[in-house]
């Protein structure tokens, strides 16, 4: 009877541990950013000045918040036609067969490539291409990072979409066909209205991925601490800033970086929560 009890405690205990880990992460980030918050207050969020030089240290997160949102939203826009095509291809047009299972494996493998390898490919293949096209001088910048991010999030943006598209009731589609609708019209007038919110939820979750991506962005964005003036300008994201500067950081700079981590955590948390909320509404 005793081991029975221990076992039950163990099960609940693992749940408690999850809660503790989550609370621990939030508390750690909060406590770590207190000195920075005391120094800069809410100005940290909208100050554009990141100056680590001794004596006139001043830190503001605005360039990185803007950089992060700009790269990830642009990535989502670029990824949309591709991810939507894959969702339609796998969820409606070709459900079984050799080609779709091939495409499915390709998408799975895209999800498996490490971020740093994407970064390398972006650096040696994509960056020269962007420079050649004359989009900006050296090929670094927001746009280049967004293209790499767009490729990286294709699997996340397309898989949920394919699933919900395949779940659109056949009777609805058949009704439209029987009225003489072409397949494109069925997609536009039946599938998209029906599966739209699920597809959208997939994009929101993919956005969450893009916001937190680090290595590939670090290698391509140019790491400038100014607010970017356009999509071909250099920039920096929150994740990339932490990766670049955390190692040598001390004192005020360290806590400022931890506060950046906290902001990043909160933003991805909100985005993921929205995605889950839409999904939940869907299944209800």
């Amino acid at each position, binding site marked *: 009877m005793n081991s029975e009890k221990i076992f039950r405690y163990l099960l609940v205990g693992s749940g408690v541990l999850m809660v503790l880990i989550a609370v621990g992460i939030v508390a750690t980030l909060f406590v770590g950013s207190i000195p920075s918050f005391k120094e800069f207050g809410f100005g940290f969020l909208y100050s554009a000045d990141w100056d680590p030089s001794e004596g006139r240290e001043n830190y503001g997160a605005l360039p990185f918040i803007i950089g992060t949102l700009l790269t990830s939203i642009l990535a989502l826009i670029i990824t949309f036609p591709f991810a939507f095509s894959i969702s339609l291809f796998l969820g409606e047009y070709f459900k079984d067969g050799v080609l779709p299972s091939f495409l499915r494996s390709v998408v799975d493998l895209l999800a498996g490539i490490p971020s740093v390898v994407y970064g*390398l490919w972006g650096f040696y293949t994509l960056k020269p291409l962007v420079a050649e096209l004359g989009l900006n001088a050296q090929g670094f910048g927001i746009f280049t990072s967004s293209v790499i991010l767009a490729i990286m999030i294709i699997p996340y943006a397309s898989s949920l979409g394919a699933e919900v598209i395949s779940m659109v009731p056949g009777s609805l589609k058949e009704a439209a066909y029987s009225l003489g609708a072409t397949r494109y019209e069925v997609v536009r007038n039946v599938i998209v209205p029906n599966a739209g919110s699920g597809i959208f939820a997939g994009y929101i979750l993919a956005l969450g991925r893009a916001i937190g991506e680090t290595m590939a962005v670090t290698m391509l964005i140019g790491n400038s601490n100014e607010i970017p003036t356009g999509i071909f300008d250099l920039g920096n994201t929150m994740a990339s800033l932490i990766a670049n500067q955390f190692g040598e950081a001390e004192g005020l700079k360290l806590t400022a970086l931890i506060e950046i981590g906290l902001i990043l955590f909160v933003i991805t948390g909100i985005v993921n929560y929205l995605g889950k909320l839409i999904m939940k509404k869907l299944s209800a």
Partner: protein
Amino acid sequence: MNISTEISDRKLKQRLLKDKIFTNVMIFLAFLSGVPLFLILYQLAVKGYRQFNISFFFEEAPDTMQAMIANANNEIIPGGIANGIIGTLIIVGLASLIAIPIGIICGTYLAENAEGKFAGLVRFIVDMLQGVPSIVLGVIGYIWIVKPVTNGFSALAGSVALSIMMLPSIVRSTEETLKMIPGTLKEAALSLGVPYHKVILKVILPTGISGILTGVILGISRIAGETAPLMLTALGSTVVNTDITKPTSAVPLLVWEFYNDPNLVNMIWSASLFLLLLILVLNLSAKAIAKKWKVQY
């Protein structure tokens, strides 16, 4: 009459044309998305295979001088990535050691308590943990372990960060798998008088082992290529290190170091190729397991 049929005829043609264009564009875009994968694989294979030899797996990473001399003589850079391979084994192994038991127990808890407020909260938290950016977990590993426990960068800190990262996928796959096992199986065992914990350990978990294993392998493949959190925790090391309280290298960290050193740049392709192959093998074996040992009853 004639004119109106002509108009509707033209309209129909237009609609059919639109449909055709849409279908073709969709197919084209869907397959275009796969092109980067093949470009990446091709680039890694062509540039990386030259370095693949025995010493690549058994020797430590070369320093800049050695690489410079080899480059000047147009030779293959000597040395390998043994410090990275062993480091990855240690860091990922330790992370799995932490995450697998906790993840499976928690997944079992969630499957056994499908409803219930606390289980709902835990489920929500696991979902949220899944979305935490890896770099943030690096910061956490730094604050929790590097500063207070190991008093410096260490493999242990890296493992803790990565274990939090792989936990959600183990929990969710365990839960999903166990939920699919029919209740009759459990009821049959319970009706024979088997105590609850033995039913779980000897009946339910073994039945779901393939799904759990798939989740575990996918979790491992998810963290094996992670670089960012390790930069803040394990840091890297030029020699093979087996002390988990000391800075340790890992294959993705080596890729990053090679990338930053102009003399060593030729090594990035082979190191990346190795990393990619490792993750590919993990993914494929996860798929094979899922296919071969589907939960059967």
